[in-house]
């Protein structure tokens, strides 16, 4: 939050009472409840909370006290005071209080105090450059207010090289991001020797965003930072800040490897907040088809803006951001002479475009902003009244962060979670207590992920030689050092391993993505060449194929040429009434097995797999009616991935016995994969895209997916459609895999908890009230397919895989199963 907000808040708690404004949010809630009762499955109200205050502690430097007073701050919120106390006692701490509760003051106070009294230095890490720059601007304001003379500088890719020397030697507070720490600071630590020798505090904001692959990288960067601190003989205190997650303390400890004191009880005042769970009305109940979430969100946004309130709309994908923005602009921005009231915000936009939107939001010049998760982070966009979620974000924590974007100190706020027809959404909206009673998910990282660990051991060895006795994290890494010696990168000399390679290893390692190389989108309309967007490597194949409609601020461009090697997509401005969506399929081959166990009449296995994803074509979808108005072919290189997976197979005998046709069995496996994926996402507390699912033969002969016509279809390794009955050996397997190169530690726990996973999947499918199957259990089916009943087939597959309760299962010899090729 901004310091100004603290100030205005403190002032208002001492100054005149604001006149009671009519509560327009409460009025909107009342109207929604009257008109759309059938859609609302749950309502939760959090009452307003008054602020709790504590005096500024006595040990504060008088200069800093005066600075605070000059800004109207005479007291602290209780959690701020607690943080100052804990830090004064020398402990590390993590602060996890809601958005806009004054977390910044928790660390700025102690850091400035130490800078004034002991010339102590501090390193601030923010996940993005933009957040870092906001932070320095704020520190400088306070600094100027009382001429404290503390020097805070940003150090990032934009810092000119002639200014870097000054930052290194004169900065009291250096504000940077993990990428710069990794690529520029740690490998050149000797230039920073003076800074490190006086380093007293390390502030890591938004620690909840360091999860998954990025989190594993950052944890390793922090291990390297710790080695450097040890080398310079300092033991800095860590101050972490987090949004609401289930395990702030444990996560901060996993990230830093240090014991943390957790501060979670906010003393900041908050207005009341309403939360509505919204299930779109059914159109065809038998098939589980409901009105689309986007049409409902678009309606709710219109109602919000017409009530004179400001809204933020969260969509699940970049594509959906553009579609929703178009729908809202069609209503509110049809007059091009007036300034826009609706703007889109997402990754892939150029930084200037994003900064402009942020600024317009803070100024209150925009009434609705449509965003992806890009705005979950603490980018300052001011206060909003209503948060609309188009689809369940996939985790309780992300949902709370998005809902938290609406809310002002003295006024009420409204959040509406609109469910899509996805299984996860339908589960959550029909079982609101799952969301309302549970604590948010745990942020998970696996810093010891093999490839990431190896990468950072390289970097660490470059920075300082390893000795025989050195530990890295909690582990003995001699085996890694020996491996790197064999590669000729390290040289062992007695008890030490020295870096002898001629490369600069940090340059080859990108913390944000595993495959390098963003694509730029080049507009060639009217013969000019302008870059209009950037797309990361992993989504390029899904969004930039030739023929794709690519949208920026809901303005459509058509991709004319994709230069895959040169990482460029050439587009021209177009006018069409449809958007495009990629059709892709995945095949998978096991490489090695780490563990296997009997599973009912089949086997469960855990191991390393090779995944190939191919985009075969795309659909054209008309706006508003959402009908499919055509297909186009796509010819792109395969996306390959080596990762860890858990998979299940059934014995061919059981398949032959239980299913009349192979079509039926295939339906069953595809449905089982769908249900297992849903349940595994919940069990792993991860986001759905972190975990991939696939059905295939296990030896790369064929893979299966639901075709664009809603039926199970088999394809050969080269991509042709196969006849199910023409395959000699029919032994399908269901795979769940970590959707990141090298794996990220999801599939092992799934293998270990396979019994629970199967039971939960059976519970999900059998407990669903639909007839033949629906998006809430085994995936969408089309009308006319009721006779196929994929739901009962999926239940049969799941039941066959489960070890019967009570009775000892008949043992199946694994040798009897067709072995997947272990090449």
């Amino acid at each position: 939050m901004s310091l100004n907000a603290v100030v205005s808040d403190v002032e208002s708690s001492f100054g005149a009472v604001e006149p009671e404004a009519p509560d327009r949010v409460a009025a909107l809630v009342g109207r929604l409840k009257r008109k759309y009762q059938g859609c609302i499955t749950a309502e939760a109200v959090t009452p307003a909370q008054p602020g709790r205050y504590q005096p500024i502690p006595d040990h504060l430097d008088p200069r800093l006290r005066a600075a605070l007073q000059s800004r109207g701050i005479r007291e602290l919120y209780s959690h701020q005071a607690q943080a100052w106390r804990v830090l004064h006692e020398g402990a590390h701490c993590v602060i996890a209080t809601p958005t806009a509760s004054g977390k910044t003051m928790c660390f700025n106070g102690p850091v400035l105090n130490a800078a004034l009294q002991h010339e102590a230095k501090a390193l601030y890490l923010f996940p993005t450059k933009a957040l870092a720059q906001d932070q320095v601007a704020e520190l400088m304001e306070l600094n100027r207010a009382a001429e404290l003379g503390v020097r805070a500088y940003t150090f990032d890719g934009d810092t000119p090289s002639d200014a870097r020397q000054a930052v290194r030697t004169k900065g009291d507070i250096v504000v940077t991001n993990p990428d710069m720490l990794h690529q520029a600071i740690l490998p050149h630590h000797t230039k920073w020797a003076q800074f490190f020798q006086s380093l007293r505090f390390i502030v890591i904001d938004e620690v909840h965003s360091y999860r998954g692959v990025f989190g594993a990288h950052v944890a390793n960067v922090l291990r390297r930072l710790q080695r450097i601190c040890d080398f310079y003989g300092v033991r800095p205190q860590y101050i972490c800040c987090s949004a609401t997650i289930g395990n702030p303390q444990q996560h901060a400890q996993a990230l830093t490897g240090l014991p943390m004191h957790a501060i979670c009880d906010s003393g900041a005042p908050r207005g009341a907040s309403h939360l509505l769970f919204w299930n779109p009305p059914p159109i065809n109940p038998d098939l589980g088809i409901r009105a689309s979430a986007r049409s409902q969100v678009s309606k709710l946004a219109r109602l919000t803006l017409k009530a004179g309130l400001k809204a933020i709309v969260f969509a699940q994908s970049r594509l959906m951001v553009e579609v929703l923005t178009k729908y809202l602009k069609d209503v509110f921005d049809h007059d091009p002479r007036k300034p826009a009231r609706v703007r889109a915000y997402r990754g892939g936009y150029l930084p200037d475009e994003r900064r402009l939107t942020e600024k317009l939001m803070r100024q209150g010049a925009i009434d609705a902003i449509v965003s992806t998760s890009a705005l979950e982070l603490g980018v300052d966009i001011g206060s909003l009244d209503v948060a609309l979620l188009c689809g369940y974000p996939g985790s309780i924590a992300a949902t709370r962060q998005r809902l938290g974007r609406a809310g002002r100190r003295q006024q009420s706020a409204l959040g509406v979670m609109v469910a899509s027809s996805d299984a996860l959404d339908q589960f959550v909206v029909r079982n609101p207590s799952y969301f309302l009673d549970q604590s948010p998910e745990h942020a998970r990282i696996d810093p010891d992920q093999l490839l990431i660990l190896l990468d950072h051991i390289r970097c660490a060895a470059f920075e300082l030689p390893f000795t025989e006795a050195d530990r890295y994290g909690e582990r003995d890494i001699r085996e890694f050092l020996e491996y790197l010696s064999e590669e000729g990168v390290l040289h062992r000399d007695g008890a030490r391993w020295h870096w002898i390679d001629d490369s600069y290893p940090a340059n080859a390692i990108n913390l944000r993505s595993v495959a390098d190389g963003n694509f730029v989108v080049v507009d060639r309309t009217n013969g000019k060449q302008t870059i209009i967007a950037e797309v990361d490597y992993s989504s390029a194949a899904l969004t930039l194929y030739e023929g794709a409609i690519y949208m920026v601020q809901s303005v459509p461009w058509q991709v004319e040429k994709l230069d895959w090697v040169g990482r460029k997509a050439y587009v021209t401005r177009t006018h069409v009434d449809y958007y495009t969506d990629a059709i892709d399929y995945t095949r998978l081959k096991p490489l090695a097995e780490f563990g296997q166990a009997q599973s009912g009449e089949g086997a469960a296995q855990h191991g390393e797999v090779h995944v190939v994803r191919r985009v075969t074509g795309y659909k054209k979808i008309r706006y508003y009616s959402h009908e499919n108005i055509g297909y186009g072919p796509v010819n792109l290189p395969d996306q390959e991935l080596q990762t860890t997976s858990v998979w299940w197979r059934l014995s061919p005998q059981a398949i032959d016995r239980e299913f009349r046709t192979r079509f039926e069995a295939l339906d069953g496996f595809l449905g089982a994969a769908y249900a297992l994926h849903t349940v595994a996402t919940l069990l792993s507390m991860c986001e759905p895209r972190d975990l991939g699912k696939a059905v295939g033969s296990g030896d790369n002969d064929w893979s299966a997916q639901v075709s664009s016509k809603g039926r199970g279809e088999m394809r050969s390794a080269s991509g042709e459609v196969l006849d199910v009955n023409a395959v000699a050996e029919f032994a399908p397997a269901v795979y769940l895999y970590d959707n990141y190169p090298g794996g990220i530690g999801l599939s092992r726990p799934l293998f270990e908890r396979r019994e629970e996973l199967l039971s939960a999947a059976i519970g999900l499918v059998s407990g669903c009230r639909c007839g033949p199957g629906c998006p809430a259990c085994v995936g969408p089916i089309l009308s006319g397919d009721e006779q196929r009943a994929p739901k009962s087939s999926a239940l049969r597959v799941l039941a066959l895989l489960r070890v019967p309760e009570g009775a000892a299962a008949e043992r199946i010899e694994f040798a009897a199963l067709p072995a997947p090729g272990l090449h």
Partner: protein
Amino acid sequence: MLDLRARLGQLRGQTAPAVVTPDAEWSERLARLRLLARERQGHTPQDTPALPGVELAPGLRLHEVRVSALRLKLAGLDLPDALRPPWDPESTVAIDQLRLFDTETSGLCGGAGLKVFLLGVLRWQGDGWLLRQYLMTSPAAEEALVRAWVDECAGDAHLVSYNGKRFDVPAMRTLETLHGLASRAHEAAHWDLLYPVRRAFRGVWSDCRLVTAERMLVGRERHDDLPGSEAPRAWREFLARGHTRDLLRVMQHNRYDLEALLRVFKAMLQVPASAPRVPVRKGRIPKSKAA
């Protein structure tokens, strides 16, 4: 649905035992990565001629060559006793203060992982030049090498280099910090000839590299020189397999560079600081041949 929720609630409290121990799994996966590693090559006796010099400390060799006064005169390697170069007319430096130096490193990218494995210093002693080459045959000797550097720079030493201000001195300073040696070597007076050469000949020559300056000012071409860019590979080859052949060529390259540095230095003493720029006509720019 209720069933799933109830079960999920139960599941949260449970932990299952590990099935595979991570370390065992790591070994297997590392073993698979190893298969991808390149095959080792065998070596022959021609690859391993003996290294010159004496072992100064474990892993650090010193190779010394003296060039006597008479030979200097004949070879044109003599200098006046006191030097006042046109690019720094305020200073007067005695010949025995000079330390002409050049390093060979494990790479060019900088950073804490850069290793300096060969330091060559040319200084006046008695009545002739003394050339010293410190060769690190083991990275463990780094501290000893840094101490040798600090000793060479002690007192009223005056450094002379080619691009040493931006590359060699910062690299040595990084090593001083890594070994906790707070020396003032990086503050020693320093004539980096790259700058006066550039001022006089930028836009006149095709480039201002040392080999170009040597050819243009001294009229010498190198023939059997190992390109400096091969030095990192030669050192790794020596560490990994004990091959000394190319390492000896790196030492020779370093001596060539020091001799070139001395000759260019001597030539530059005659080039006025305000040397008129020769207009360049297209097609007449001398192209560099040496790598």
